[in-house]
């Protein structure tokens, strides 16, 4: 495979070759170019090669660079990945890593260094300092760049063309290098003012804007009906999905079968989610319990029930997690309580992300509390008011000592859950979410992937939620066990020392502090119910219910008789 060096002059080209003597045989200087667009089109349509690497003349390549890019091409072929373009820096559709950034960098330049290790990830666009092109696939899919002049936006154009041709665009550490230039913001802005560029991009993608490494690219509004089909955000995921990477996620619902209507609500939304997820990831619903299902409970089609009995366990919620991992064969596990529900709106996005993410990922999702009022034997009559919103990207703040990620807001791998010693599952009852999260993050072995869409509604009611319990004794006991476990671990790292940095960012109210919010709401409700105006207006409310025929005279009379 040739490495095409786009040299500003003959002298620059010769200097590059001289400084990369180990690559002399594969270097191809491209001197006298007036347009990167023309060069790329020539390579795609006139070259004999199936693959090519195109680089700036101010990059410095490592000794094993050629070996790495050849290996990458080989690995892509073996995995059946459809790809068009790879770079060493790009903008992802999801956030990655402890820093939770959408920009992935595998290079050193005046802006900084690398921010990730080892992951090949799909991106929307790449930076053009080093690009690996699948010329064969680009040709076969009729990819042609516009006939523009100059040396800006060619990388964005090629990324967009690749996405529209349904060829994946990736960043890979194999292309890591040093790049001596930090780019030129004013040149970017000048190019952005090009009407030709805007018109071109508008014919390709439907987005009003997208983020590139140089800044935001804004396009005119078009209606859904008139817009091109390609949504660059979703295309970057779908183009990277491969059948070989189809993983299984067990959606595990822990239950005691004591609130059947709520459980049925949960299960119907899990079914809706699975229906919407598509084939990129295999989602399965598993119900786990220590109790046998009641006779009138009908297990929905396709769902599985696993009953495990524990000896003398006072609170077995975490034991059920351990049992689920031991008995359910899946790559990932997503624990959803039997009174919560899933939102299916962005199921396909999550499904694609799980497919394209590294195997050793941990996924963080947005979720939200809902204050619910109603009778548990009439769940259809519930009114659910949105309350506190848990942002997936706040997971890192859990290093502060307060948990910011509800259990349902994370999807853990089998290995992450197996890493937790059995004694931990036996000792911790409450804070099982925090324990699992810290165990996963502190190991450093799992890549955080943040999906900033709402996936779970968490039910909060006046009774039936541990988070609203006034007696904090069980919480405090679990916290003491948790602290002891994580600080006395057999495989310590220094990652907990990030807590001082995280704490200095000011977020202090973790998941468990919502009890204050709920108690405040309860107090206000109690004030209203005890108020004189509420008592005075009671007969009027009764008349309204009679008028609407929601109650009958005979029932009212009976109530009055009992009151006497």
């Amino acid at each position: 495979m040739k490495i095409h060096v786009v040299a500003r002059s003959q002298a620059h080209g010769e200097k590059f070759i001289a400084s990369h003597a180990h690559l002399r045989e594969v270097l191809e200087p491209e001197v006298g170019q007036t347009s990167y667009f023309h060069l790329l089109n020539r390579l795609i349509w006139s070259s004999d090669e199936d693959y090519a690497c195109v680089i700036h003349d101010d990059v410095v390549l490592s000794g094993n660079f050629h070996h790495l890019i050849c290996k990458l091409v080989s690995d892509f072929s073996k995995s059946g990945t459809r790809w068009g373009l790879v770079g060493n820096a790009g903008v992802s559709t999801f956030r990655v890593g402890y820093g939770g950034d959408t920009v992935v960098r595998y290079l050193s330049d005046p802006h900084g260094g690398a921010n990730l290790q080892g992951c090949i990830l799909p991106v929307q666009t790449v930076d053009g300092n080093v690009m690996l092109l699948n010329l064969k696939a680009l040709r076969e899919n009729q990819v042609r760049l516009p006939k523009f002049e100059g040396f800006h936006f060619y990388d964005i154009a090629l990324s967009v063309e690749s996405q529209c041709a349904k060829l994946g665009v990736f960043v890979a550490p194999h292309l890591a290098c040093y790049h001596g230039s930090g780019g030129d913001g004013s040149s970017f802005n000048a190019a952005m003012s090009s009407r030709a560029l805007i018109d071109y991009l508008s014919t390709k993608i439907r987005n009003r804007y997208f983020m590139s490494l140089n800044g935001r690219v804004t396009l005119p509004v078009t209606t859904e009906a008139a817009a091109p089909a390609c949504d660059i955000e979703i295309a970057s995921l779908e183009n990277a999905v491969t059948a070989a990477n189809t993983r299984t996620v067990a959606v595990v619902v822990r239950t005691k079968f004591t609130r059947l209507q709520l459980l049925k609500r949960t299960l119907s939304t899990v079914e809706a989610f699975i229906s919407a997820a598509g084939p990129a990831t295999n989602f399965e619903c598993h119900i786990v319990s220590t109790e046998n299902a009641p006779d009138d409970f009908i297990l929905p089609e396709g769902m599985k029930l696993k009953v495990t009995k524990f000896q003398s366990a006072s609170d077995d919620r975490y034991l059920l997690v351990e049992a689920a991992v031991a008995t359910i064969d899946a790559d990932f596990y997503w624990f959803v309580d039997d009174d919560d529900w899933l939102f299916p709106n962005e199921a396909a996005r999550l499904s694609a992300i799980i497919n394209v993410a590294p195997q050793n990922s941990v996924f963080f999702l947005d979720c939200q509390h809902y204050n619910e009022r109603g009778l548990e034997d009439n769940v259809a009559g519930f009114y659910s008011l949105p309350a506190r919103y848990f942002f997936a990207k706040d997971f890192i703040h859990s290093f502060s000592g307060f948990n910011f990620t509800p259990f349902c807001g994370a999807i853990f791998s089998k290995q992450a859950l197996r890493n937790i010693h059995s004694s931990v599952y036996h000792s911790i009852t409450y804070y099982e979410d925090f324990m699992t999260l810290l165990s996963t993050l502190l190991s450093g072995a799992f890549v955080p992937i943040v999906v900033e869409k709402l996936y779970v509604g968490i039910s909060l009611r006046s009774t039936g939620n541990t988070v609203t319990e006034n007696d904090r004794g069980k919480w405090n006991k679990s916290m003491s066990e948790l602290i002891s476990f994580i600080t006395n671990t057999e495989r310590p790292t220094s990652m907990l020392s990030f807590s001082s940095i995280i704490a200095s960012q000011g977020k202090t109210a973790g998941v468990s502090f919502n009890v204050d919010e709920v108690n405040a709401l309860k107090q206000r409700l109690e004030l209203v119910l005890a108020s004189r105006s509420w008592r005075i207006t009671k007969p009027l409310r009764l008349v309204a219910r009679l008028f609407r025929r929601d109650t009958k005279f005979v029932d009212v009379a009976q109530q009055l008789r009992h009151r006497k």
Partner: protein
Amino acid sequence: MSTAKVVQVQCVYGDSHIEHVRKVLMPALADATDSRIRFVCTNYAGKGRGRIESGQLGNLEIIDIESEASAATGFAENHNRLFDLTQPDDFFVLLNPDCIPHKGAIDLLIRRREMAPDAAIVEGRQWPSEHPKEYDALSLETPWASGAFSLIDSAFYRSIGGMDPRYFLYLEDVDISWQAWLNGYRVIYEPASVVTHFSGGRFYRDDLVSNEQFLSLRNFLVIAKKFFGEEGEAEALTYLRSFNDKELAELAEKDYVQRFKENVDQRYVGRQHPNVKILGLNCFHRMQ
């Protein structure tokens, strides 16, 4: 509870809804009423697209009617066609394909209608996000009913020629509700009848223009002119031009001027009813 023998439920779906309709919506529908159900549906995307298999599923008779159009057709056009081909006797139920009706939900709509025979439309409540629009706590009257889950009187529907297809998507439900009020009917809200509806509001992306965003703005001009004439159109344009997304507003206005301005049916102009009102941009009700 219900005395109806067969309840017709109409559903217009797209390719992305098929799995949900098959695996979630239809099984839930069987529990939504004690009556037998005739589930009449069609794919709005056009001829040759994915379909729901017609047949029998418990107490559900499924009738999937293939579209004859070569391209996507709108909400009203499809429901009108389903109605015209099946002619439901007394009433029928509109149900969006992304909904999950709760147990007894349809029987509760039917019961409410039996108690309010002058109601042209009875709307059910959406969960988890109830629409914040007003309804009278005593009479349950509401200015307009959402087309996501409503029971509609067949005679009324027939008398007005069905929903107005010019909207394509969005505001047909406001339009048909206003027609109900202006023709002497009532529009009722039944909060006890509940459907799970994961509506898109909180999931809209600001880097894309959704059908709802664009069409709602454009159709706002159409409905304003249709019911309030030139004066209504002028007021609606004032609201639209103050919208913070100027680019989208201009696009909506341009589309309205090019395609609708000169051919909006104005037979309702001059007729008034307290529940037929515009309080702001796409605001036809007080917030509750």
